[in-house]
């Protein structure tokens, strides 16, 4: 999916949304969810290609595989959380959006814990005594 297709789809969706929002706000919300999901799915193929290259590079640099997979997981959590937050904010539910944001932050922190432990361990090795 090229940029021209994304822009065209976005414009058409926006105009339909403007019509629907006056009559049926629920339908407008569902349509915006569908648009978000379609764009996400369309972009995931390209994302996979990027990640493939990054994996190759990190393999050549002989970086511990654990770090890279943790990074990937954090990226995935951030993407999904941002997706839900955007939809909740579109619907005007700021409170729900904040909670999703909070949950995503906590989950990312938990995922990042092993990396932090590894950093501290290497620091301990460096320090004499």
């Amino acid at each position: 999916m090229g940029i021209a297709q994304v822009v065209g789809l976005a414009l058409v969706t926006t105009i339909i949304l403007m019509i629907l929002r006056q009559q049926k706000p629920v339908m407008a919300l569902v349509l915006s969810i569908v648009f978000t999901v379609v764009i996400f799915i369309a972009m995931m193929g390209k994302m996979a290609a990027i990640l493939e290259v990054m994996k190759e590079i990190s393999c050549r640099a002989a970086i511990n595989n654990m770090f890279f997979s943790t990074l990937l997981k954090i990226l995935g959590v951030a993407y999904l959380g941002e997706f839900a937050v955007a939809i909740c904010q579109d619907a005007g539910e700021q409170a729900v959006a904040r909670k999703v944001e909070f949950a995503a932050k906590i989950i990312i922190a938990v995922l990042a814990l092993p990396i932090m432990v590894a950093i501290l361990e290497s620091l301990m090795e460096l320090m004499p005594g």
Partner: protein
Amino acid sequence: MNIDIIFRIAGIGILISVLSIVLKQAKKEEQAEMLTLAGVVVVLIIVVQLMNQLFTVVRSVFNL
């Protein structure tokens, strides 16, 4: 297939809003409400399938 689904949802939405206006004009308020509810449920089923697809894709890409 992907773009198809947006226009399908938009079509259902516009159709339902027009039909519910017609029903309201004919003094059938509760049937208009039922129609709205049914439309939301139908659309929601499509959306849930789409979300499932998204989560599967994200999970496979990011190894979650």
